[in-house]
C-alpha cells in the first residue's frame, strides 16, 4: 500500500492567529487503510490541526495535498464533499433522538411528492441497522435514543454515519477521552474496523497507550510545533509518551514528584 499516493499529504503546514503561532512545520501523511495518530497534550495545536483538515480554517503556510492534488478548503462543506469527515468530541448527536434519526439527520431519505413527502422509515432504519452491523454492532431496535447508548456505541454511530456518507478520510477528535479503559478498547476496535474497510483514519488523542496499538503513523505536536512524524516501526510507546509530554519536561516532573513523595 505504501507505494500508492497517500490520501492526504501535509508538508510544513502552519497557521497563525495574528502574531500567535498556532501551528508550524507540521508534516505527515494519511494512507488508505491506515491509521495516522496525532498526539499532543492540551494546547498542543491538535484542534487547529483538525480545523485545517476539516475546512474550518485554511492553512497559512505549507502544502496540503488531497490524493496528490494541492487543496485548501474554505468551508467544512467543501471538505466533506471531497470525502474528509470529522467526528468531533461532542459527536454532533442529539441524545434524545433515536439511532436511525441521528444516523440520517439532515439527509433523510424521503418518499412521496411535494408537499406530501415523508421519510422512508423502513429504508432508513434498515440502512442504519446494516451500517452499524458492518461496524460490528448489532442494534436490534434503531428506535432507541442515542442517549441510552454507551459512549463507545455513540462513537460507532458517528463513525458509521461518516463512512456511509462516503468519507475517504475520517478524522476522529479525541474519541476515547471521555471513556473508561474497556470502553476505549471498544472504540479502538471500531477504528481498526474503519481502516480495514479502506478509509484513511486520523485519530487524535492525548493518550499514547490508545494510539500505539492501532496507529500506523504518529505525529506528535507540542505547543504548535511538530515534535516528529514517525512510522510505527520507527518508535516505541515509551518514546512516544516522552516526546508527547515535551520529553525532558516530563522527566523533570517525575523527579520532582519522586522527591516530594520521598520527603514526606
Amino acid at each position: 500500500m505504501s507505494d500508492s499516493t497517500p490520501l492526504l499529504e501535509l508538508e510544513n503546514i502552519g497557521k497563525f492567529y495574528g502574531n500567535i503561532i498556532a501551528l508550524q512545520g507540521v508534516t505527515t501523511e494519511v494512507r488508505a487503510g491506515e491509521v495516522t495518530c496525532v498526539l499532543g497534550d492540551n494546547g498542543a495545536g491538535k484542534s487547529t490541526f483538525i480545523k485545517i483538515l476539516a475546512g474550518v480554517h485554511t492553512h497559512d503556510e505549507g502544502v496540503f495535498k488531497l490524493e496528490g492534488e494541492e487543496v485548501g478548503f474554505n468551508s467544512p462543506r467543501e471538505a466533506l464533499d471531497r470525502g474528509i469527515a470529522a467526528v468531533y468530541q461532542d459527536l454532533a448527536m442529539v441524545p434524545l433522538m433515536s439511532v436511525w434519526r441521528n444516523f440520517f439527520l439532515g439527509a433523510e431519505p424521503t418518499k412521496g411528492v411535494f408537499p406530501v413527502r415523508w421519510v422512508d422509515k423502513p429504508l432508513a432504519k434498515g440502512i442504519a441497522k446494516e451500517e452499524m452491523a458492518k461496524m460490528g454492532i448489532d442494534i436490534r431496535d434503531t428506535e432507541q435514543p442515542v442517549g441510552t447508548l454507551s459512549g463507545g456505541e455513540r462513537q460507532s454511530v458517528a463513525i458509521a454515519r461518516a463512512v456511509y456518507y462516503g468519507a475517504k478520510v475520517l478524522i476522529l477528535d479525541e474519541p476515547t477521552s471521555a471513556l473508561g479503559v474497556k470502553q476505549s478498547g471498544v472504540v479502538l476496535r471500531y477504528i481498526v474496523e474503519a481502516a480495514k474497510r479502506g478509509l484513511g483514519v486520523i485519530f487524535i488523542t492525548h493518550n499514547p497507550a490508545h494510539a500505539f496499538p492501532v496507529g500506523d503513523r504518529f505525529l506528535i505536536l507540542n505547543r504548535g510545533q511538530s515534535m516528529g512524524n514517525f512510522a510505527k516501526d520507527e518508535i516505541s510507546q515509551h518514546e512516544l509518551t516522552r516526546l508527547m509530554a515535551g520529553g525532558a519536561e516530563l522527566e523533570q516532573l517525575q523527579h520532582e514528584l519522586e522527591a516530594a513523595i520521598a520527603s514526606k
Partner: protein
Amino acid sequence: MSESADTADAEAVEPQSSAEKALAASAAGGDERLAYRGVFQRLFVRPEIGAIVGAAAIWAFFWAVSREFGTAGGAASILDVSATLGIMAVAVSLLMIGGEFDLSSGAATGTFAIITILLVKDVGDLGGAGLSLWVAIPLSLIIALGLGWANGTMVERTALPSFIVTLATFFILRGFKLGFSKLMIDNLTVGRISEAEGRGYEFWEPIFAFVWVRNDHQLGIRDALYTIGVVGGLALVAFALAELSFVRREKLNSGGVPVLAAGVVGVVAGILFLHNSDGVGANTVGAVIIAVAGLAAFVGFGLWRFTPQAAGGVHIKDSLPMYLGGGVVLVLLGAICAVAFDVDSQESVLDLLGFLRWPIILAVGGGFAARAYLRNDSGHTNTLQAVINVASIGIATGFGAYAFMFMTTEQGLRSILFAVFVLAGLGLLGLAATQAGRASPATRGVVLAVTAIALAGLAFFIRDQSASEKFRSELFGVLLATALVVLVWGVISTMFERRTSDHEAADNLGSLVAKIGMGAIAVGMIAKMLFTTDDELAAGVARAQFRISILWFLGFTLFATWLLGRTKFGSWIFAVGGNKQAARQIGVPAARTKTQLFMIVAVAAWLVGLLLAFRLDTVQSVAGNGLEFEYIIAAVVGGTLLTGGYGSAFGASIGAIIMAMSKQGIPSARWNSDWRFAFLGLILLTAVIANNFIRTKAEASR
C-alpha cells in the same frame, strides 16, 4: 428543574460502569443495552404513556363521583374544552420540542379572531373593512404567518431567549387588541362575524362552527355495537399481546384449536345468556360462563400457537404471603369504604364528622410530629430548633388534614378511600406477582389467580352491598372484566415460554392485530358517545352537543403526529431542540426550522381564533390572554420536555384532555370551585412527577 437534570443524565451516560458492562457484553457477543425489549418496555418509553394513564385515572375518578361524567353529554363537554386548548397545546408542544416557547400564543388566538371580524365587519355604522370572508380568511392567515415569521426571525436574529421576545409580542398583541378594537369600534367586544352574511358567511360558518346535537340520533344496536367493539377489541389486543410476548411453536399444535373454538362459542353463549336473562343469579351464572369460556379460549389459543414452558415447581418466598394477604385485605377494605360512604351526599366531610374531626386532626398532626421527633432524635443538637421543627410539622399536617376534610365531600371521600385502598392493594399484589415471577412461573400464576379472585370478590361485594346504581352495574362489570383479564394472563403466562428475541412475522402480526383491536374499541366507544337509545331518552339524559372543533382538533393532532414522526421536518424539530449545535453542524437549517415552528403555532392560533369568532360571533378583547400557560402546561402534562428535544404531539392532545377534565370535573362533581386551582396544581405536579418517573425508569431499564 427535574427535566433539565434528566437531559443531562441522558447525555452523560455514566461512562465507567456502562463501559465495563458494554465491553463484557460485547466480548460475550451481545450488549445487554441492546438486548431485546419486550412489548411493555417498548411502550413505556413513549412520552405520552404517562398522560394516557393519567387521563384514564382522572376520568375514572370523576366518573365515580359525578353523575354526568361518563355520559355522552359529559364527553362532548370535555372534548369541547379540549378542542381549542388541544389545537394550541399540540402546536406549542412542537415548538417546545424544538426548544422554544411562545408566550404570545394565547393572546394571538384572540387577535386573529378580532382581525378577522374587523376585516369583514360592515363599513357602515361602526368601523370595519367590509371585506368578504373569502378575502378575510386568507388575509388573516397571511397575517398569522407573518406574526409567526416575525417571532421566529426575532428569536433567531437576536439570539435572545424566546421567553423574552415572545413576551414582548404578547404585550404588543394585547395592546393591539385593545387599541384596535377601541380605535375602530370604540368597544372591547368585537362583533359580529355574522355581518359577513352574503359575503361567504354561509359557506364558512359550518366549517368552523357546525354543531351536532346527538340526542335526535338513535341507534337501536348501539349497545350491541359498543359491547362487541369493546369486548372483541380487548380480546384482539390480548391475543396480540400473547403473540408479541410468547415464543411461537415451530409447528402449530392443532390440538389447541378445538379448545379455542369451544371457548369462543362459550363466550358468545354467555353473552347471549346475559343479554336475554335478568336477575342477580342469572347475571352471576352468565359471568361465570363467560369467564370459564374466555379462559378456555385463551388457553386453547396458546396451546395452538406457543411453546409450552418447562415446568417449574411452586416456590414461595417468605415475604410473599404477606404481600398477597395484605393486598387482598386492602382491596376488600377499599370495597368496604366504597359501600360505607355510599350516599349521594354533597356535604363537607367536616360537617359529617362533627366533633370527631378534632381527634382526627390531633391524631394526624400528633402522629406526624411524633414521627418527626423520633426521626430527628439524634440529628438535632439544638433543642429549640428540634421543638420548632417538630411543632411545625405537627401543625402543618394537622392543618392539612383539616383542609382535606374541609375540601372533600362525603362522595369525594368515598372515591378517594376506595381508590387509595384498592390501588395500594393491587400494588401489593403486583409486587407479589413480580417477586413470584422471579421465583418461578408457576408461583406467579398462583399470585395472579389470587389477585383475580380478590378483584372478583370485590366486584360481587360491591354489587350486593352498594346503594348506587352506577357502582352496582358499571363498576361491577369493570372489576369483573379486570379480574378475568388478570386470571387469564396469570394462567397463560405460566403456561408458555416468554420471548427474548425478535420474531419478525410474529411482531408484524401482533402489532397489526393490536391495531385492529384498538380500532374496534374506538368504534365501540364512539358509537356509545354519538348515539342515544330510547331508554336513555326516557331517563332524560343531558343533551350532548358535539362541535366541529373536535374534528379540527383530531385532524390537527394527526397532522402534527405525522409531521413529527414521519417527516424530515419532524426529525429536524427534535434535532434543533435536542442539540442545536449538532443539528447545525450536520446541515439542518436550524434557524429556518425554528421560524417555521413559530409559524405553525401562529397558524394554530389563527385556526383557534376563527373557531372562536364563528362560535361566539362576538369576541372579547381579553380573549385568549394568559392561556399560553395552559397550553404549555398541557404540553408538559403530555410528556413534552420543558428543555426541548423530547415529547409528542399526541401526548400534548391527551394533556389538553386532562386539563379539560380537571376543569370540568369539579363543577360536575358539584365540589367547591374555590379549590379548583389547588386541584389543577396537584394534577400538574402528579403528571410531571409521573412522567419523569416513567421516563427515568424506562431509560434505566435498558
